């Protein structure tokens, strides 16, 4: 196998960890939303941290191996689809990071309610289904999907 094939393989594995990790975070968060007791909500939101680490590792690997591919394959950073992908990568990571802070505060809230009688709470429910937090996470995910589309169609290449 050539070096480019190795780089392409690891670039795609990184992209898989990035997007698939986000899918896993979404599934675990959805499971937390369906629970009533704050202790169960806090427990399930705590598990999303593992998937968030997967997203972070994938994002960095996809960027690092992608940068190596740009260097080796004769593409340029100012090619439209590569520049747009990089901008979307930054957007996805930043939006996901802000959305992740919101989820972390929700977990802290759930832990507080769990320690304080573990009764269902409207405040926790509102935090779990916060439109702002959901919008940030969906926007982050859509940016990642837009990168995938650019990588496949390579407009202008």
């Amino acid at each position: 196998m050539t070096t480019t094939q190795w780089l392409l393989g690891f670039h795609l594995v990184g992209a898989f960890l990035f997007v698939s990790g986000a899918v896993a975070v979404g599934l675990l968060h959805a499971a937390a939303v369906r629970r009533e007791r704050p202790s169960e909500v806090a427990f399930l939101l705590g598990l999303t941290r593992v998937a968030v680490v997967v997203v972070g590792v994938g994002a960095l690997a996809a960027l690092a191996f992608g940068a190596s591919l740009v260097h080796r394959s004769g593409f340029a950073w100012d090619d439209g689809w590569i520049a747009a992908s990089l901008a979307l990568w930054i957007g996805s990571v930043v939006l996901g990071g802000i959305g992740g802070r919101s989820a972390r505060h929700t977990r802290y809230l759930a832990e507080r309610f769990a320690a304080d009688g573990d009764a269902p709470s409207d405040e926790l429910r509102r935090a779990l289904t916060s439109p702002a937090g959901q919008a940030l996470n969906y926007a982050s995910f859509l940016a990642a999907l837009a990168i995938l589309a650019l990588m496949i169609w390579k407009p202008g290449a």
Partner: protein
Amino acid sequence: MSTLLFLHVLAAMVLAGVLIAAAVAAVAARGRDDARGDLLRCFARRAAIGAIAATIATIGLGEGLAADEDASGSWLDTSRGLTVFGLLLGSAALAVLAGLAGARPRFRRPVALLAVILVLVALATAFVMAAKPS
């Protein structure tokens, strides 16, 4: 062609995501004998059933793409083998074992191990499909 490829990769990413979620839940549940352990095993079982559906979608889109491009090669046969015998049968086994693990504690560790192996098989398949080593 590009639309099929996009949908194929997207379905495969959803498949890997469902498997990662199942693995996180199965690993967290392996030493638990309480209600949270049951909750996690139920989650892992549902995720495994979702993985079966995502695998079928990925295979269907991939075969459509292979026919469209008239693709062939050992990389394609390898990824077919990994997908059908690894991911499809593995996800079915995971769904069955995660269902049994609630009443049979001896299945809990194998369920966690199988879930992690399935994630690795999914990533290995993605590597083979991208690098096309033949």
